[in-house]
């Protein structure tokens, strides 16, 4: 990936920025690098988006490059597809996870299939940014983890950053990709800060966030930080845990995940979305199929319950917590040690 920073970016290189600012910078740099990159969605113009992720883009690039749309997610998705057919590279924002559902038909029937339907003649380089996940005290319909719907739709890439630098590099790569990318942004991490590095592994590769020898925690997006906290807490209980940040769910990095699980012999998959039929079920199945002879215990999942996302006052019970992950780790048949 050839990511370049503008002058302001270079000056700011050693200061910490938030994940939301990293996304903003990626959009800016992509718009500067390629005039076919356009950004649109609900309130993304003058307001800069409800999370301020598109702050200043209309001011700096003009209304032709970053614009507000009517309130209609299928319309946003459908017009993005039409613009991509004409050579543009749209980056659209779904205001919140649960409000991307009206766009789902366009995503499933056209965005995901157009390249295939036309034998490669009509690739659709569209990025769909979806702020997702809970833990921000949002009322209903504002905290869904909707990645499973997209993950189950062949033809889409589905990626989710967990760090400031990944938010930047992965979005730049997503915009450069000739395939549609669902870019899931963990809302809870929007305000997390770090120094930005503009290089990183390519899309499709997982990253080992912490080396360990006893068990592998497999997480993505908002649960990566929970997994890291758990690993710290687990030291006191005598476990040395490895943490894999998937970064990309589709394509899935079997290689990195399996290498880790074969090394540790145990695995726990963590996500906020409901467990039944969730992404974790696929991951647990893949790991079991590929690492069966290395496994000391069944693969465990720590996920949200199989319930509609709860109200803010109850969400702490629903979200995977350090304690619940520790319990899962403790259940991984350590008797032989």
């Amino acid at each position: 990936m050839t990511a370049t920073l503008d002058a302001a970016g270079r000056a700011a290189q050693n200061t910490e920025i938030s994940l939301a600012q990293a996304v903003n910078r990626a959009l800016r740099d992509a718009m500067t690098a390629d005039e076919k990159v356009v950004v649109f969605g609900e309130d993304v113009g003058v307001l800069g988006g409800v999370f301020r992720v598109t702050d200043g883009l209309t001011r700096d690039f003009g209304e032709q490059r970053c614009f507000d749309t009517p309130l209609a997610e299928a319309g946003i998705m459908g017009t993005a597809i039409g613009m991509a057919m004409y050579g543009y590279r749209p980056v659209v924002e779904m205001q919140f996870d649960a409000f991307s559902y009206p766009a789902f038909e366009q995503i499933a029937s056209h965005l995901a299939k157009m390249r295939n339907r036309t034998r490669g003649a009509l690739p659709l380089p569209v990025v769909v940014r979806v702020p997702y996940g809970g833990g921000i005290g949002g009322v209903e319909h504002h905290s869904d983890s909707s990645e499973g719907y997209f993950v189950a739709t062949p033809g889409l890439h589905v990626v989710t950053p967990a760090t400031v630098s990944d938010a930047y590099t992965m979005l730049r790569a997503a915009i450069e990709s000739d395939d549609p990318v669902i870019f899931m942004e963990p809302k809870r991490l929007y305000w997390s800060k770090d120094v930005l590095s503009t290089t990183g592994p390519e899309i499709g590769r997982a990253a080992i966030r912490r080396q360990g020898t006893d068990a592998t925690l497999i997480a993505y997006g908002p649960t990566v930080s929970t997994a890291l906290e758990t690993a710290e807490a687990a030291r006191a209980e005598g476990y040395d845990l490895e943490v894999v940040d998937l970064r990309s769910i589709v394509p899935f990095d079997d290689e990195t995940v399996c290498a880790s699980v074969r090394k540790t012999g145990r695995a726990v998959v963590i996500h906020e979305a409901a467990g039944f039929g969730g992404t974790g079920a696929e991951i647990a199945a893949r790991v079991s199929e590929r690492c069966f002879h290395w496994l000391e215990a069944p693969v465990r999942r720590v996920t949200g319950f199989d319930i509609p996302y709860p109200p803010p006052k109850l969400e702490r019970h629903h979200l995977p917590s350090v304690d619940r992950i520790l319990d899962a780790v403790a259940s991984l048949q350590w008797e032989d040690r």
Partner: protein
Amino acid sequence: MTVLATPDKTGSGFPLGFDTILDPSPLQYLDEHGALSGVLRDDAPELAPDRLLATWRAMVVGRRFDVQATTMVRQGRLAVYPSSYGQEACEIGAMLALRPTDWFFPTYRDCVSMVTRGIDPVEALTLLRGDWHCGYDPQRWRTAPQCTPLATQAPHAAGLAHAARLAGDDTVALAFCGDGGTSEGDFHEALNFAAVYQAPAIFFVQNNQYAISVPLAKQTHAAALAHKAVGYGMAGVRVDGNDVIAVQHVVGEAAARARAGGGPTLIEAVTYRMQAHTNADDASRYRNDSEVEYWKPRDPLARLEAYLKACGLLTDAVVAEADQAAEALADDLRTRLGEEPEVDHRDLFRHVYARPTPQLLEQAAGLQAELDAAELDAEAGR
């Protein structure tokens, strides 16, 4: 320059739409007996003899294509065929009013339009034959893949038109849609987006009175589908969809307005689906023959022929040449659709992503191994 302009009601906006829109009687230039209504000026381009003859010839060839496809679906050479017999004034008139640089968004029913655009008839039938989804190169023909999820192509046309305008091109995007499709949310979102952006788009509704079995009266309570344009602040027009001269004229006007920055147009073309929904449908379960009989004399091709004959334009030589072209097309279809199409199982995995994922490579290898083993078994058994 602002992109999100509001309609300029003082400028060139809506010369056609708002004047006529609330009168639900469709615009007609050529009546069912083939007589000109006299509304069009004699020097209207649609009335130039060359243009009239080219239109008529395209209708003769288009109809022959449709009849042949219907025959071949009965012979099992196509998986399914939705006929547009009787809708040729829409299918062909709209196409002839576009430039090759304009984009077209067809539905499953619009093979005749695609053939009129110049797409190879066999490539136009790939979807319905079942050897792939889209058989032609959409970029080359500026024709999107035929769309089956109803009205979902309409926002694509709005987006593409908006993109063309941003790029400074004078490209127009025309999307076809059925009367049933106008009830879908995407239809409305597309109209609204196109109007807000003042995108050079044309939404052409072929109101053939039915959505499979459901008649228009159960689809809408509105007096006319074209009236929906008012709600979006765009031009709307209701046209006799069996009058190819009127169809060409209104599409031509809509395209000219769009190119001049006057925004989108909704066109409702009133026509009739003469055949069942597809070969798999039984129309006798929901409509009477008498209704079909009513529409027979309103046939778009017969009507144009009557006019051309009265003008003395349909010479024997002209008729013979068109018949020959139509028969050649039918022969070609018979031959090429008669052959079993070649399909390649490796295509299953080829165009899912720009680069296949490791998982797809693994699955492709698995299928290959399965097929190789089956082939070896078959050889051993022989």
